[in-house]
């Protein structure tokens, strides 16, 4: 076996050993184990990258606005570069979350970019390239598109902070505690913000507002 291949396999095994068995309920401790492994061997950062890249990109795609596909790709690269730079300083703590750490980096990157653009990116709609891939019939795909368009319209009516909390939950798939950590609010405040938004959306949806 070529040496590089052997090295990669060893690293993969080390990462798997560090992460233990995978499973959603163990995601936080798995992440901590992967971080610890990556701090000792930077090649072992790859499993964390693979775990989060799609969610980071999709979050940034939302933040970058309708025509921001290229910017979102650039920002995603920046986020992981910043994460690699910060990796040695990451402190593994009880109750800490790698996901929250990464999304704080992503949020800062998006905010820096928006400031550099000296503008607020308007929320026109969920970017079309983020629409779910239709695996259903043409009829149900049409229905799906109509529903999504309606949800987009309702989201556009929400204030930016409420919208971001929803994106962190539904796109980034963070827990309420992690959302709190990213936004600098308590878990309870995050829960209230999202629950209130859901009620508002539900009422507006049925009222046709």
């Amino acid at each position, binding site marked *: 076996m070529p040496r590089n291949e052997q090295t990669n396999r060893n690293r993969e095994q080390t990462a798997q050993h560090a992460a233990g068995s995978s499973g*959603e309920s163990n995601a936080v401790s798995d992440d901590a184990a992967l971080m*610890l492994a990556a*701090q*000792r*061997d*930077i*090649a072992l*950062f*790859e499993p964390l*990258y693979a775990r989060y*890249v*799609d*969610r*980071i*990109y*999709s*979050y940034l795609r*939302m933040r970058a606005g309708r025509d921001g*596909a290229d910017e979102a*790709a650039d920002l*995603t*690269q920046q986020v*992981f*570069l910043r994460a*690699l730079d910060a990796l*040695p*300083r990451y*402190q*593994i*703590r*009880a109750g800490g979350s790698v996901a929250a750490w990464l999304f704080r980096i992503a949020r800062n990157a998006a905010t820096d970019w928006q400031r550099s653009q000296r503008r607020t990116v308007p929320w026109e709609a*969920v970017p079309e*390239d*983020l629409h*779910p891939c239709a695996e259903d019939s043409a009829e149900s795909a049409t*229905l*799906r598109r109509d*529903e*999504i368009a*309606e*949800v*987009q319209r309702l*989201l556009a009516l929400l204030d930016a902070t409420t919208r971001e909390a*929803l*994106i962190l*939950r*539904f*796109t*980034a*798939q963070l*827990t309420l505690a992690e959302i709190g950590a990213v936004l600098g609010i308590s878990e309870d405040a995050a*829960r209230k913000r*999202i*629950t209130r938004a*859901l*009620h508002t*959306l*539900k009422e507006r*949806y*049925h009222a046709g507002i």
Partner: protein
Amino acid sequence: MPASNTPPERYADLVDPLGNDSELAQMVLRLDQALQPRPAPSEVHAAFAQVLQARIAAQTSQQQVESAAALSRRDVMKAAAASMAWLLALNHTGPEVAREFARFAEEGPMTGARLSNILQVERRRWNALLAEVGVERMEEPGVEGAWSVKELIAHLTWYERRIVESAQQIVNTGTDPTRVRSGLAALSMDERNEIIAAESRQRPLADVLAEADQVFSQLLGVIAACPDELLNNAAVLGLPDDIPPWMRVANNSYGHFREHEASIRAWLDRSSQPGERRD
């Protein structure tokens, strides 16, 4: 719209507390469909792979340089025997730490991997204590004497750095730069400690914390490069039989940290008493 009317399990914390509100569950499903993450473009992966490969190459290159600079094991032993005795002058071992060291020693020779693991576990404990303090309180004076937590961290880092520098030099070249005392090391311990604390008072907290992390990373690096024999053979180093070199390392790292941990905990307890002023 959705094939199922039940939102995925991951939204239970949003839907369950709201009882049987089916309309709300439907809205959760709609949002799940509309906002679900999509794959990042392939160019993102390609760019990251390039960056990661470059970082791996840099890390490997550094390890090769360190390896090439190392002397033979015999040379290292001979050199170390003549140069690590100064570590004995630092006495941080309390009874609890001494008992722990004795227990480790009874369990067999220390390996670099095991020592590294012990140091990391202890450092997580220390970091948990710092998290309990919180960055906003780290510059409050009066934690131990007049010192703040920031000054304590700088103090601990200075001694840990001495161990790192000494061990790096011994492993790589066989000479110990710390054997000949100069600068702060040439002063009495009290004088030295006061100067370290005074200097740290002028430094931003973030710098002090970052330096502590950096030195600890260096410590792990040098332990990884140190032959296990060097960690265990007290006679070769000219140390008393019951004090193998790994104890000297542990003593000036987490053994020292534990000594000051008690002061921080006592200060936290004092400041949490009713009526205690925190300003």
